[in-house]
């Protein structure tokens, strides 16, 4: 299991290779990459600054990974999240999950991402033609996370 918060970019292929190396039981790897869009809430986005609560971030994501491990048959999970100044086309977040079969890998990957969106203490400030603004949380993100609780 790994959690990394960093300013530098990441190489998804390399991270996948590292996560599954030396484990011949792995039959499936699911990966999600979040990237910066050039448009949000009707405004052009020139870039964004990401800040986080150092310490709590790592702890919150580690707890999400533990929940995923208790719920699905998965071998390993890696979460890499970038902070600092980012621009459109940049990668923001990577979630990689390895398992024996794809069903568990897909489900756990989506679960970790949905929980990260509502539980991990990161905040985005966007630069737009109207000035800089803090991104507001979306009700759709709460609904996405809540859906996993209903599934029990």
């Amino acid at each position: 299991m790994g959690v990394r918060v960093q300013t530098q970019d990441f190489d998804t292929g390399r991270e996948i290779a590292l996560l599954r190396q030396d484990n011949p039981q792995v039959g499936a790897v699911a990966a999600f990459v979040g990237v910066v869009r050039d448009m949000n809430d009707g405004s052009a986005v020139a870039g964004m600054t990401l800040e986080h609560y150092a310490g709590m971030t790592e702890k919150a994501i580690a707890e999400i990974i533990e929940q995923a491990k208790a719920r699905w048959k998965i071998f390993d999970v890696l979460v890499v999240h970038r902070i600092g100044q980012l621009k459109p086309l940049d990668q923001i977040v990577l979630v990689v999950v390895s398992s024996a079969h794809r069903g568990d890998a897909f489900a756990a990957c989506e679960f970790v991402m949905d929980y990260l969106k509502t539980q991990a203490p990161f905040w985005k400030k966007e630069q737009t033609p109207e000035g800089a603004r803090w991104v507001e949380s979306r009700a759709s993100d709460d609904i996405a996370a809540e859906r996993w609780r209903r599934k029990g």
Partner: protein
Amino acid sequence: MVTVVYFARLREALGKPSEQLALPVDVRDLAGLRRFLMSRGGAWSDELAGGKPVRAAVNQNMAQGDTPIHDGDEVAFFPPVTGG
């Protein structure tokens, strides 16, 4: 003493990333600490009175109004998270 930290919109509006404060004797939980900070008025009241969404953590765990606060705790106030 408790350490109180602020993030994102709150950090900017309140003009500080963190502070140390002596816990007032009548403050026992998160809601009590929030009321104490609101009593400073101005931006403190604007940000914490409830008109704007605020979340909080105690010792780096998400917390609610009835979460107890003790001497030595680290309390954080911030807007709903927007990572990913």
